[in-house]
């Protein structure tokens, strides 16, 4: 067991160095900083009219939660595994005295940490900028800790699930990037936006992350009202329900959503390790 932990750690460290030093990480890092820049610009321009909690919540939901986080985590986790398999440099690890699950687990952890770092830096910078921009009291309500922490928790747990799904694709399919793209754009974006009544939405990771944000950002009343309206499919006012009642009734609790995300991560990671232990990744067909 000690050997397993040690080798997992070694693989994770090496993969982390490679991932964080790669051009693709730089690209996603740039996007993350772009999000922070957009946030600063929007808060500075409209913060007095809309309220910084609302702007921060809406932009983070649209840019980070629904787009950048799933894309970054999915891309990095697939790349961490699939690049080495397609380049065949994986033979050096596979022929070393390292248990296969330790290799894949190490790469999963490296991708998760890389995603957290890339997304975390942008998010942290966006929060700091928003906080400072409304520090001169030009804006109405201050950016509240509850707003930042609710999105922060979501963004903290999301990479565990997305990277597990990415690892599963990378170890199962040759064209894992296509599968990853289909998952993010078709499943997470499309199915994740279906009305609550369909039930499909609750099977997506993005829904759980959004639930954490909606439930936790109590200061962003405008954002919660919009979300409650969206959850009910625009029937909020018709049914005469208050946004708080809708959120209380229809949005799962934060611990429940966190558990859902982590359970998804565990299931996909388990499948990935199982497949990764059984499948051959060095076909050698093209050689002697």
């Amino acid at each position: 067991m000690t050997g397993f932990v040690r080798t997992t750690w070694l693989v994770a460290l090496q993969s982390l160095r490679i991932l964080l030093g790669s051009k693709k990480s730089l690209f996603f890092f740039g996007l993350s900083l772009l999000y922070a820049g957009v946030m600063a610009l929007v808060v500075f321009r409209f913060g007095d009219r809309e309220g910084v909690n609302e702007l921060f919540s809406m932009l983070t939901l649209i840019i980070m939660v629904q787009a950048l986080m799933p894309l970054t985590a999915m891309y990095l986790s697939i790349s961490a595994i699939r690049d080495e398999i397609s380049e065949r440099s994986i033979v050096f690890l596979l022929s070393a005295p390292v248990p296969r699950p330790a290799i894949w687990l190490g790469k999963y952890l490296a991708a998760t940490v890389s995603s957290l770092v890339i997304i975390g830096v942008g998010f942290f910078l966006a929060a700091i900028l928003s906080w400072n921009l409304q520090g001169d009291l030009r804006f109405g309500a201050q950016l509240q800790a509850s707003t930042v922490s609710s999105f922060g928790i979501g963004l903290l747990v999301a990479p565990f699930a997305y990277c597990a799904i990415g690892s599963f694709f990378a170890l199962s399919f040759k064209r894992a990037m296509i599968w990853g793209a289909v998952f993010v754009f078709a499943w997470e974006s499309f199915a994740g936006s279906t009305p609550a009544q369909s039930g499909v939405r609750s099977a997506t990771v993005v829904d759980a992350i959004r639930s954490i944000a909606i439930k936790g950002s109590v200061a962003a009343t405008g954002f919660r009202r919009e979300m409650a309206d969206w959850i009910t499919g625009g029937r909020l006012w018709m049914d005469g329900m208050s946004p708080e009642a809708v959120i209380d009734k229809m949005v799962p609790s934060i611990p429940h959503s966190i558990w859902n995300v982590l359970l998804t991560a565990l299931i996909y990671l388990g499948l990935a390790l199982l497949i990764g232990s059984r499948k051959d990744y060095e076909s050698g067909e093209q050689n002697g």
Partner: protein
Amino acid sequence: MTTLSYRLVSKWYGNVLGVSQVDLDIGPGVLGLLGVNGAGKSTLMKMAAGLLKPSLGEVRVLGEDPRNQASVRAHIGYCPEVDRFYEGMRVESWVQGMARYFGYSARGAKEITNEVLAKVGMSENRRKRLSECSKGMRQRTKLARAMLGKPGLYLLDEPLTGLDPLGRHDIVSLVRELGRQGNSVIVSSHVLEEVEQMTDQLVLIHQGRLMARGSISEIRDQIQDQPRKMAIGCEHPRRMGRELLALPSVEGIEIQERGLKVHVLEAGAFFQALTKIAADPIHGVHSIVPLDEGLDAVFGYLVNK
């Protein structure tokens, strides 16, 4: 003592047969694995290195399954044909990083890296980035990595590829030395001369099947249906040709300017008779050279069988 054994091993890649019913025991010493591209050499090596599982049969290294027993892979020094690394890394960092997977502490990894890089003649280039290394340097780096676990079984897949003559000489000496030390060293190649430099013990493989095993002359002896060819240098080829044609062990002759080529059916009887004929000074025999005991000839016969 058997280090590596293949028991009726077959491997398919979808519908393509990679290796078929190979049954082979390998002990200490250098063994050449010879075959054309696509013959199944790399597949056999990958199965021994634990990279591939056989579709049928079993592969054992020191009695253990290398695919599922990670610990046994510490005793395998695998030098793959693959030429891709973490390109941005320096040679020494890459080897050191690999050494950690073989159980070395950080300090131990440094020491063993110095040791193996010196053995393969890469000490001077240790600080080079892998992307800046020549093909030969990369080959040496892979060999250094193969020596990390102080293994008892070396699997060297085309180890001389890309090496300059001096590099070839060094690696050939190294391979021989590893064999002398009691290690089992399997060297694959499709270049006959390469293998001949390292060992006379061969396994010939063609279209996934084991064709023959042994020294070149032993393998040649196994081929009964092909007449042997001898070149005899002499002063009077026609006269000698007449005498040789009278022998029942001779199938035919080709007269040449300063000698003749003889096609021999039964080597034993022919050599007995030839000793007497050649001793007669009237023929002026000055050389007798077997023409088809070279690897290429033997291999050609086996492949065309």
